[in-house]
């Protein structure tokens, strides 16, 4: 049995689907961030997998993932800072109730 490209892509696809589902359904901002991480991760897998299987001699996909991980870290840190700040201000993390700045 061969491990084909498809076999890596399918878990990644499911992970992405879960991320979408979570992003849309969850109310807690941190849970949303977690879903976001899932999606990001699945995309990272795709990059590396495509790199590995289609262009094994080059490293673009890998580097892209590398940078994506770095940026994801930064973004998460920032997002969590905001979440905590918002929580301090309104004592909530439920996005449905954060409508103060709407219009």
């Amino acid at each position, binding site marked *: 049995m061969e491990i084909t490209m498809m076999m890596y892509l399918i878990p990644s696809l499911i992970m992405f689907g879960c991320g*979408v589902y979570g*992003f*849309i*359904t969850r109310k807690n901002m941190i849970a*949303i961030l977690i879903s976001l991480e899932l999606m990001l991760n699945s995309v990272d897998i795709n990059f590396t997998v495509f790199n590995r299987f289609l262009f094994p001699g080059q490293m673009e996909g890998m580097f892209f993932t590398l940078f994506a991980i770095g940026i994801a870290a930064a973004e998460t840190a920032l997002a969590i800072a905001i979440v905590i700040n918002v929580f301090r201000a309104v004592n909530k993390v439920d*996005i*449905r109730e954060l*409508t103060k*700045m*709407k219009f």
Partner: protein
Amino acid sequence: MEFSYTVAVLIIPIVMFLFLGIVGVKLSKKTAGVLGTCAMGVTTLIAYAAALTYFFGTEQGQIVDGVRQQLEVMNITWLEFTENLVIKLGILLDPISAMMLIVITTVSLMVHIYSLGYMDGEKGFQRYYAFLSLFTFSMLGLVVATNIFQMYIFWELVGVSSYLLIGFYYTLPAAVSASKKAFIVTRFADLGFLLGILILSFYTDTFDFVTLTSNPGAAIASAGGATFMGCSVMAWALTLIFMGGAGKSAMFPLHIWLPDAMEGPTPVSALIHAATMVVAGVYLVARLFPVYCLEEGTMTIITVIGCVTALYAAAVACVQSDIKRVLAFSTISQIAFMITSLGVARPELHEGVGYMASMFHLFTHAMFKALLFLCAGAIIHAVHSNEMSKMGGLRKYMPICNIAFLIGCLAISGIWPFAGFFSKDEILVAAYANSPVWGIWLSVVAGMTAFYMFRLYYKIFWWNNPDYGHHTPHEAPMTMTFPLIFLSLVSIVAGFIPFGDLVTWNREGLTTHINWGVAGTSTVIAVGAIILATLLYRKENAVPEKMADSCRGLWTAAYKRFYMDELYQFITHKIIFACISRPIAWFDRRIIDGTFDMLANVTNSASYAVRKLQGGSIQGYVWVYLAGAALLAAIAIICII
């Protein structure tokens, strides 16, 4: 041309107007008044010099082959529309304008002097003199106009001076509404004038009086027989122009402003609403007479309107109780005489005597009507009321005024040797020459004139002797009596001026002789009317009241001026305001504005409807984004398959 100094008669008053208008408030009342009067005096001298030189001088080419020439003293371009249609400001000296110069400056000077006494102590004295100067300027500009558009310009200016002077007591609502009415009614008539000018100039391609009148046949022919709604366009043009004249001259049915205009100071009534401005319509028709007399239809309209107005105004004058109103209706009636006289004049009838008669009557009427108004002013000044019921027996208190008023009444009634006799006689001659119908009609009106004038005279100076209380009437000061005396003298002698030699339609001499048949008849009628008035009104008695009671309906109708004002009120308020303006305003607010507001509202509600799509919920965005992406992908897939 040696008449160039005539320009000064226009320049002095306008400079005076600006001077008094701008710095007048800084001057004392006396200074302003005297300054205005002196300026007017100088103007009068210059105008007399010009007119007398024109009439009686020989050396400057005024008369060529027995025909008085039309001299264009000055003609500067003011506004160029096209190559030929040019508004020029200029001075045209010919018999009628020279005569009008004399009339206007004389009456104006008298009014200036008179006002020194009459307006003494009034608020806005300086303003009053400024307006008088403005009026004098405008009126002089009107009569010396070289082209019809210049006339229109000054026509509007006299209109506005009249507006300002009628509304002089601007805190009184009656004066304000009277001035407004005067302006709007004459403005409406001026619309006709303007349209007439437009039509006339469109076909003849000129505004110039000399060009128009020197070859009237060509002017008429230039329309090329074009018609509009069944009438020739030239008839339309001339009738519309006459409409302007009718408005200014208060011809029926555009007369309604003149009685109300009596709200102005009395000297103003004397100057503007008796002697000068109101004859502008007559002057206008006279100016274009050669053209008018080629349009038979228009001439008939003029005659009919003149006759109807004469009778109507005389009938109303018989029952009015306000002395200025009586004089106002009498003015309307007398101007109607002049208009009729022009209407019946034909070059072939007695060498166009109607034209000359009209101008002659204009001249004499200006003098004696100004006299009557100034007397009325003196009376009002003494009694502090306009109502006849508050007067009576004044002959004892105001002898000079009494005599002057009597002279005025005799003159207007047409009693020899007063001025009115001669001019009215010529008018009647002209009317009989055209058709006996007009002649008889005018004779009747002349009789009514004598009746209501003497009714007025007796009611003021005889009738009863009411208790005047503390304010015993007294003779007016010298500044007021001098003009009365002067104008009385003129009213006595003016009839002997050889008008036939001076002012005729073709500017050639005309031999006039008194037609004793006509003159005798009219004198008999006048004397009869005077006797009737004497019987009825010399002493206080109940007969007039009984007579009024016996035909109460007619009497009330006449007293209410045959409801013409109410009719106008109805048309303007109920029809124009309520049925046109208000619906338009409503339409504008609701329909037009509503349409645009509705557009805005629809946009607004549409954006409210789609606002939810961007409510700030990231999850919603993602869902829509994904759904959209999936949809696109599905479409792509289906297309590929």
